[in-house]
């Protein structure tokens, strides 16, 4: 059972980390766009 849970948890950790990286990228670019508009 521990192997099953490990596989499912790792899948979601990788996916959530990637979504987090994309969200951070959006925020950083939004700040840059704001700076450029000034």
């Amino acid at each position: 059972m521990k192997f099953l849970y490990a596989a499912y948890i790792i899948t979601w950790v990788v996916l959530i980390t990637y979504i987090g990286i994309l969200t951070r990228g959006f925020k950083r670019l939004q700040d840059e766009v704001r700076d450029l508009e000034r």
Partner: protein
Amino acid sequence: MKSKFTIFALFTFAMLSWGLYAAMIQAPTEATMGPVQRIFYYHVPCAWVMLLCFPANFLVSIAYLVKRNALLDALAVSTAEVGVVFCTIVLLTGPIWGKPVWGIWWTWDARLTSTLVLWLIYVSYLILRKFSIGGPNPVLAASLAIFGCIDAVFVFGAIRWFRTQHPQPVFGSGPNSGIDPRMLHAFFINIAAFTCLGILLVWLRFVLERIHQKVEEAHAMKALAALPAKVSR
């Protein structure tokens, strides 16, 4: 556009929840491997999305080499990056499934090795793109993607062409191939759910890359506008 994205994201979330329920509750426990076989419902759909992303990257890269269009370039990097994410999951969940079933985490058979090589090719692709400052690097990256796609074909065919530790195809590999209909149900829900997730991530990454391209363009324009002032000084 934003509302379409939100609706699709909610739909994907619902599909993934249904997929998790079908994999953990609805699907019967496999007789030989036991509960660990349920890794199949995540491992195979992730491999499926990976094998959609890389050929898509190949086609878009070819189109980019012909047309040199920034939209195609953004789509190429999006499919490659999402493909790497799913390939990473495949390379992590595979050994976790292999250890209790085979007794080993890893073996250098054709399927496993070609998948690792595929991951390395596309990580190189992303590194090449990340550190490219103008110049011909998107072209070099697109050329690398062509080699990546050849390896993706090899990954797909490896278990059909060679004797491997990795199991033979579950579907269409002989008269005794196939699975229980309840397992098939859980499997197809997860295939659909992960395909939606793959599309959603490519969509998100594509939008991000387009903004990045526009910001880079604006920076270049700003630098050009500042140039005559510096020269006249």
